[in-house]
Structure formats: C-alpha cells, structure tokens
C-alpha cells in the first residue's frame, strides 16, 4: 500500500529567551491510503506542531524547521512556496481545528464560508457553489441545511459548528484531513455524534485522516494506527488494537492506566509520578526516565532508538514491555 503521506525526519525548533525549545525532534510519520492515524500525547508534546508542519502552517521565523521529506500523494512538498501550498490546502489536504468558534469567521454566514471552498478550488459560480454547500451540509447531518447555510456561527450550537467545520474540510474531497482535537471542546453526547459522522464521512469519501488528540478513548474508537508522542519524540507506534491490548512503552502503559474507566474499582487512581519536562529543560538520556519505574543507568545516559518490535510496531525503549513480561 503506497502511503499518502510520508514525513521523514521532521525537526522544529523555537529559539526563545529561555533557550531553544525543541518542539519536534526527528519525527517520521506514514499515513496510508484511507487510513486513520492518531497522534496521541499530552499538552506540549509537539503533536500539534507536527500536524501543522505537515500542512506547512508553522511560521518561520520564529520557528526553524528542518525536514528531509514531506511526500504527499507522490510528490515532495517540502520546498513548495506559499502559492503552491494554497493550491493544496483545502483542496487536497484540509484541517479541522479544535475550537470551532474561533476558526469560523464570525461576520460571514457559514454558507458563504463553505461556498468559498468551491469557488476558490473548483471555480464554481455562486449558485453552483451554494448548491454544493447545501448538499455538503445535508451529508454531514445538519438539520435544515438550506436555512442553516444562511446562519452566522454564533447562531449555531457547539456541535453544529463542529459539523460545519467537517463539511468545510470534506468539501473538496481532499486526500488527507488533519483533525486537531476535533471533539475536545464538545460534550460527551455531542462528541459521540460528531465522531460517528467523522468516521462515516472518512470511510464514505475514502479520505485519510490524521487525528491529533490527547484522549485515548477517542483514539480507541476511530483510529487504525497510533503514534504516541512524548516531549517531541515518537515513543511508540502500533496498530490500535495491539497498542491497547499490549502496550510496550512504559509511558503508554502509564497513560492508559491513568485514564479512569467505568469498569475500575472505587477510589484507586493509578498515577504517573512527576510532570512532563519543560520543553527547554529536557532531561538527559530517555526523556521519560525521571518518571519511569523501570529506568536504569543506561536510560539516564542515552536516548534509546526507535526500533521495530513486532508487526507494524515500533518502540523507543531499552526495556520494552512484552506480552510475556519484562525483557
């Protein structure tokens, strides 16, 4: 299967008064055709910077980006200029942001905002664009699409706004959609609706999806492959089922144990000690070693490489957990 996106050795650095902030360090990412890849991690781990770098949205300066390749649909877009990127953004690759209220224009009707997609990328007339917009809104499950196209963002509820963003992202049937925390701002019942729509649309349109999130339960419900990030590095990559049934990196294990579940016993919360290191003051060796139960002298000195650890699996740890116990 030829991947739709091949990201090789991405490094993003922000020089600040407090020193260099290495937001992303040597990240490789592959997204297959029609695949849903999730990028999971806590705040500050570099997951959003990675996803925005794919769309070349990170401004430089202040950021300094080095990348070996961003191969998208068979061509390398790493040296594309702003004009060329504009042709790709929205048409072949589009993005869904977390906060629908701030990513929609408050003084334009949502219909006009979606119309723009068709007029800009497909050269449609006003009338034809509106017809397509109404159809897109209908497809996404918005009630009364014709009337809704004439409303302003503030007249819609949070769930409806997020649906409008979905309609906009899917408007030109892009090859890749990047969804940055698409459901974090929503309530649980609305989250369930939006995720179902997102998954349905992704399958129906044959798009690939890069899902950026901190919520493991969202990952479990829609992703195919998962990359776990910690402090700017990928620490584990695995197919979703394998990751949840047999996590190998101690951080992944801790993260999963830290999420309270409905099936848990009362009053016991498993915790990971300490906190995520400050991005300008990362520890030596493996970045996770100060919080890791299994850390040895080796972990303090050297950063472990990302090694193959099974079918389609990679892990960055000297002492990965295996199904039969600790190596």
């Amino acid at each position, binding site marked *: 299967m030829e991947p739709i996106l091949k990201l090789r050795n991405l490094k993003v650095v922000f020089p600040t008064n407090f020193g260099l902030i290495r937001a992303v360090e040597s990240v490789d990412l592959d997204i297959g055709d029609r695949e849903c890849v999730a990028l999971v991690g806590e705040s500050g781990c570099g997951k959003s910077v990675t996803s925005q770098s794919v769309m070349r949205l990170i401004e430089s300066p202040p950021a300094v980006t080095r990348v070996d390749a961003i191969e998208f649909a068979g061509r390398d877009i790493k040296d594309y200029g702003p004009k060329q990127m504009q042709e790709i953004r929205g048409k072949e690759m589009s993005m869904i942001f977390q906060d629908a209220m701030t990513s929609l224009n408050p003084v334009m009707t949502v219909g006009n905002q979606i119309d723009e997609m068709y007029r800009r990328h497909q050269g449609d007339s006003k009338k034809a664009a509106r017809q397509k917009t109404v159809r897109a809104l209908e497809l996404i499950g918005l009630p009364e699409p014709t009337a809704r196209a004439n409303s302003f963002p503030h007249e819609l*509820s949070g769930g409806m706004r997020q649906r409008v963003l979905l309609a906009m992202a899917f408007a030109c049937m892009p090859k890749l959609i990047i969804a940055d925390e698409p459901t974090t701002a929503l309530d649980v019942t609305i989250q*369930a609706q939006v995720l179902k729509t997102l998954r349905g649309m992704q399958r129906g349109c044959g798009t690939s999806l890069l899902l950026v999130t901190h*919520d493991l339960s*969202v990952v*479990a419900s829609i992703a195919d492959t998962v990359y776990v990030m910690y402090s700017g590095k990928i620490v584990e990559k695995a197919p979703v*089922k394998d990751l949840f049934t047999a996590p190998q990196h101690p951080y992944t294990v801790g993260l999963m144990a830290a999420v309270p579940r409905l099936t848990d016993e009362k009053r016991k919360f498993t915790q990971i000690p300490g906190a995520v290191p400050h991005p300008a003051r990362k520890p030596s060796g493996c970045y996770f070693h100060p919080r890791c139960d299994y850390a040895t002298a080796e972990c303090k000195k050297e950063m472990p490489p990302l090694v193959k650890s099974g079918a389609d699996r990679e892990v960055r740890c000297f002492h990965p957990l295996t199904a039969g116990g600790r190596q």
Partner: protein
Amino acid sequence: MREILRMNNVSVHFPVKGGLPFLKRGVIQAVSDVSLTIAHGETYGIVGESGCGKTTLANAMIGMVKPTSGEVLFAGKDLLRLPKEEFKKARQKMQMIFQDPFSSLNPRFNVYQIVSEPMFIRGEDDQEAMIARVVELLELVGLSSEDLYRYPSDFSGGQRQRLGIARAISLNPSFLVCDEPVSALDVSIHAQILNLLVMIQEQMKLTYVFISHNLADVKNICDRMAVMYLGKVMESGSSDRIFKRPLHPYTQALLAAVLDTTFDEKREQIILQGDIPSPIDPPLGCRFWQRCPQAMEGCKTIPPEHLEVEDDHVVACHLVHGFPAVELPDGYDRPVESLKK
C-alpha cells in the same frame, strides 16, 4: 446519616434583557426546583453536560448566587437569611476549587500571598504563624517550602491546581466544592490530583461536592450523585446503584456515550439526536423529551415527578413510574412520531 447541606426546591433564574425596548424579555432557568441532601464526609457528584446548570447549583450551595426561590440549609442554618457577619463565618467552612488553574490564581501574587489570602481576609496578622501554616499546607499538597515566593507562572498546570487546593483548605473548611478540578489538566496529572483530593478528604474529614462531566471520575470518587439536564435533576442517589442500574434514558445515553479503551466487548451505543435546548424556553413536560429515544406524547406536557425506585435512588421519568392518573390527554402513551428515524 448526618446531613451537612440540604437544598429545598432551589431555583436560580437569570433575567435576560432584550436588546430593544419591545423585544421579549426572557428568563434563563439555570436551575429549577432542585432538592437534595448531602451527608457529612461523603463525596457528592454532580454530572451533566455544559449548560445544564451544575456550576450554578454549586454556586447556590455556597451562597455565591442567590437562589430565586427555595432554601439552602448549611449545618441546619438557612444561608440566605443569615446576617452578614454570620454568613461570612459560615462561608469560611465552605470553600471552592476551580476548574481552570490558570485564571483562578492572581498572576501578580506569589505563592505565600495566594495561599495566605483567606487567612488574611479572616483577620489573621501574625506573619510567622501564617508562613508556618502556608508551608505546612504546601507540603500537604506536594509542593515544598522553596516554592513560597515563586509566582504562578513558574508552575505547571498540575502544580497550580495543587496551589488552588492548598488555598481552599487553608481555613480548615468542612465543605469543599470541586468544580471540574481535573478537566483542564493532562491525562497523566489527572490521577495525581484525584489521589490528592481523596487523601486530603480522609485526613481532614471533608465533605466534597464533585462537579464533573466525566462519568468515569464520578463513578470512582463519588458516594452519591445527581445527574442534571437543563437545570433539573433527572436521577439521583447512591452512585453504585445508579451505575449498576441506570433508569433514566438520559443517564443511559450518557453512560453509553463514554468511549471505552477496552476492546473486549462491544457495548451498545446510544447516540442522542440534536442538542440541548435553550434554557430560556425549556420544554413544558419532561425537559429531556425532545432528545429522548423513548419519548411518549404525554412526556411533552406532563412533568415527571421525583420518585424513589429503590433505597436512595430517585428517578424522574414517566417510563419508570408510569403517568399520574389525572386528566391525561388522548394518546399520551403513544411514542412521539417525529423522533423516529
């Protein structure tokens, strides 16, 4: 059961002014007709989606908003009718932990000033005693005396939430309202703060009101709970019983909407249609009927009563109790057609 707080038919309404002189003026019914009792030393959970009135209810509990009607009894005294001085005294016993540790701490105060402020307001003036007390509190919540003169910007989200907790317990309260204390924090910090809250509760014999939209947290931390929807309590009582046998369709849907990270069993997914209606014009009958997968015609107009189905498990739903036997409209028990898909 020794009760510490009782609310009798509390309603909180906020008037909304129309933008133009002749525009209709409305009332937001943030909380309507809520009665509950909270026992000494327990953790009481309030669950619901955003806009369902859970924060307003908590604010009404500690007298931060004045209820439009109803009464709030704290340790037997009606909070709203207390003279100002006595209210201030009672209020020392009730404190709050806020959701957002970034906006709830004054960025220009150092740690000592933040944590000692409640003592200062009470009229404490012995500087040394206050420093000793602040250090003691900091150590209790897992910070150290070295942090005394640092500013909130030097701390991470989890540490700031610890500061908020230290400030809340500085006057030895007996009643603590935790308004979504962990939802702004990272997953790995989440459990640390919950464990800290449990530890402090055991040490100081506190009563908690735990507001959350995360059902898994509530299940693991709360003894009793109330599920709210659009300003009304839908189901309340012992959390064990509610989680074991949720009876209200809204509780069932909420539980089903919690995504799980286990792959063992495929649970039934109930996906609710539509959004929460506006609290300005709430539905006449059951407030949930527009989204209820099992709504009947009668649900539109007849409000359900709160009735106990088993010991310490109260539900307000016609499906559970049946309709009251007074003047029922024709076809009251027909399913609502428009909701069928």
